[in-house]
């Protein structure tokens, strides 16, 4: 077969994978997404308590799953939402296999070391205390509310958060609003 001549494989793929055939750039597309979102996905997984090695491996696995899904012609409206959804599920699956669930529980005494641009030591101490209170309140949030805040801070839309959590958009909006109000309450205590 001459180079560049269409074969059955390319024709089959053209039918099954329109996104691929249009620009023949699926690898490039996934690679670009990988470079853009891998740190965010990794941090998200690590904040669920996965060790660096496991978080790195699961991050790659999440992108491989995206590649397979796109290659199979799965319609994905928001790739970012899809990636975080799969990452959240992978984290839950991981801890289910391990027989427990975990978020990273941190020593908040480190909060005092938070650097800032406040002009006076008093203002800096007050800010550090405020962040400490918010962080403490965040650790006390129910898992769903905390996940809402994490996902929103990664830039996900309400609809994407709702899909990941398996609830309606209104519920996701309610939860996020409730979480923000609780954290604000802690900030102004």
């Amino acid at each position, binding site marked *: *077969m001459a180079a560049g*001549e*269409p*074969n*059955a*494989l390319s*024709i*089959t793929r053209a*039918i099954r994978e329109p996104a691929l055939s249009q620009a023949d750039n*699926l*690898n490039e597309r*996934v*690679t670009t997404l990988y470079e853009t979102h*891998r740190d965010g996905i*990794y*941090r998200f997984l*690590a*904040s669920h308590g996965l060790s*660096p090695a496991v978080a*790195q491996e699961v991050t*790659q696995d999440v992108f491989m799953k995206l*590649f397979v899904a796109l290659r199979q012609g799965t319609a994905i409206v928001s790739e970012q939402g899809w990636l975080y959804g799969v990452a959240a599920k992978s984290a839950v699956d991981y801890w*289910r296999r391990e*027989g427990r669930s975990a978020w*990273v529980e*941190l020593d*908040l005494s*480190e*909060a005092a070391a*938070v650097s800032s641009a406040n002009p006076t030591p008093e203002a800096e101490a007050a800010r550090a205390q*405020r*962040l*400490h209170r*918010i*962080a403490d309140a*965040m*650790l006390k949030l*129910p*898992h*769903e*509310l905390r996940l809402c805040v*994490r996902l929103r*801070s990664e830039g996900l*839309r*309400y609809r994407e958060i709702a899909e990941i*959590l*398996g*609830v*309606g958009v209104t*519920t996701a*909006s*309610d*939860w996020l*609003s*409730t979480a*923000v*109000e609780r*954290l*604000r309450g802690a*900030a102004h205590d």
Partner: protein
Amino acid sequence: MTEHLTRQQLLSYLDGELSKAATRAADEHLHSCWTCRTALERLQEDIGAILDAQNAVLLRGVPPPPKPWPRIEPLLVAAAESGHVSWRARLSFRWSPVYATAAVVAIVGFIVFRWLTPTAVSANEVLRQVAQADAKRVATASGRFVRQRVRVTKTERRTARTTFGEIDSWRAANNAVYWRVGASDVAASDLRERYQRENVPTGLPLSAAAYQSWSRQLTAEPQAARHGNVMDVSLTAAHEPHQIDLKVRSDDWHVISMDLSFADAGFQIGEEEFAVVSRDLTPPDVLAHLEPPPPTTEERSVASASPARRLPSEPSVEPAQNVDDIEMEVLLALHQIGADLGEPIEVARGDSGSIRVNAWGASQERKNQLRELLKDRPNVQLELETPASEPGTVVELSSARAAKLTGPDERLARWFGGSQLRENFTRSVLDSGTSMLSHLYALKELAQRWTPESVSGLSSNAKNNLASMIQDHARAATADESELKLTLGPLIAEFSSKTDADTSPAHQTDWQTSALASLQTAKDTDGLMRSLLTTTNHPVVVEDALSQIQHKLGELDNSLASLRSSKP
């Protein structure tokens, strides 16, 4: 807009989540309202503080991402190639534009046909999968609640008038259920009354328990058809409702709607929302219903007798119930939550006709699940406490034995082209093998416990449960085996000297024999794969090992086919 914006509206405004019209109205209001503008600015500041707290404090302890990240391109190339090797091998002739056009027409035609034409599938199989998925979905831990909100559409036959309603249903881990229906919601109230009148268990309105109960006197075999990724299942019952139609999502076996056809009206129940929520997020009125104050002894005895509080999956244990049947119910319950796949859970006969479930070594989460699952079964003893452990024996690998350990063949390393690719491949193969073995071990347990003699003493219901478990495990093992063959295909094509796997027809034997034969063959295959792909003290020649694996997979095909076609 004259009223002040709520906090939620302000947050949605900041997040760009309001509709265009609502955003315009909010803009106008904010332009003229000091209070809301100030509230918006404060909210924005507070969100900044929340982000700072998250990034500077909470995520501070999270280990940084790797630098540099490993490249993903080689994995993508490998994944793309491994999925297309067999196509290339088959397509050895040259392509002309005529062939290409014909292929396009044929493939498009097939896809259109496939998606537009309903495909017949086994309704019983769909219902079994749905029941199994449903059992897993609603199995919650204490302190968490399942919420299902459904839309109810009622159409009166005589007037063709349609009314709409909503049921907000909640279910606790202890099976307590609460349906929240608006006082003026005629459609939902009517449906609830029909559930109660027909003694349909008031679990969730769209649940395996509900449709099994509605369809308990079928007059004909249920029919199923696939439309894209939705399965339609039709059931015809002897009494009202005469027709029940389910729509099931095929990717997760979730029932998304149910139509009930009564003589005077038809109801469509469509799921709007399904979630498992924590206690914190459960409204107080719901909690009041789901967690009432502890009843008196008298109240408890009345409550336990109420059929509305029981789900069909729970056994209604009668004094004269066969102990074999009780055991089968326990086995099925464990099977439905996936607790029969090699976990340290043992089911055995206890004292005076009871069944003992020992789960000393199970995870805490599993123990909680078992506690909930088995707590209302009077003839079942659940053992969760760990006895004082005896000191274990430390097995050390002798240096002589360690010296024999051998790594994978160098040619394999070259074929994979990189250690990461080889590791991924090995993990994938061993995962499939392990999953297949877990199902075959579960089958072995069933086969050894339920010999042909003991099966003959079971009730027909218990036999059906046994058949259902056998089929589930056989299908799951077959799926794992298929994945294994697909993954190993390129390696076998490269190195194996054999050209064909064993394709001789399956011998018809009883399911117990087929189960044990399948397990033995799978164990042999697993051993060969581990010798080939991992560091081992049983070195093998690549060609020989792959030929044997190919042969063993052929044998497995046969014994699994025999299992799938057999009945207890």
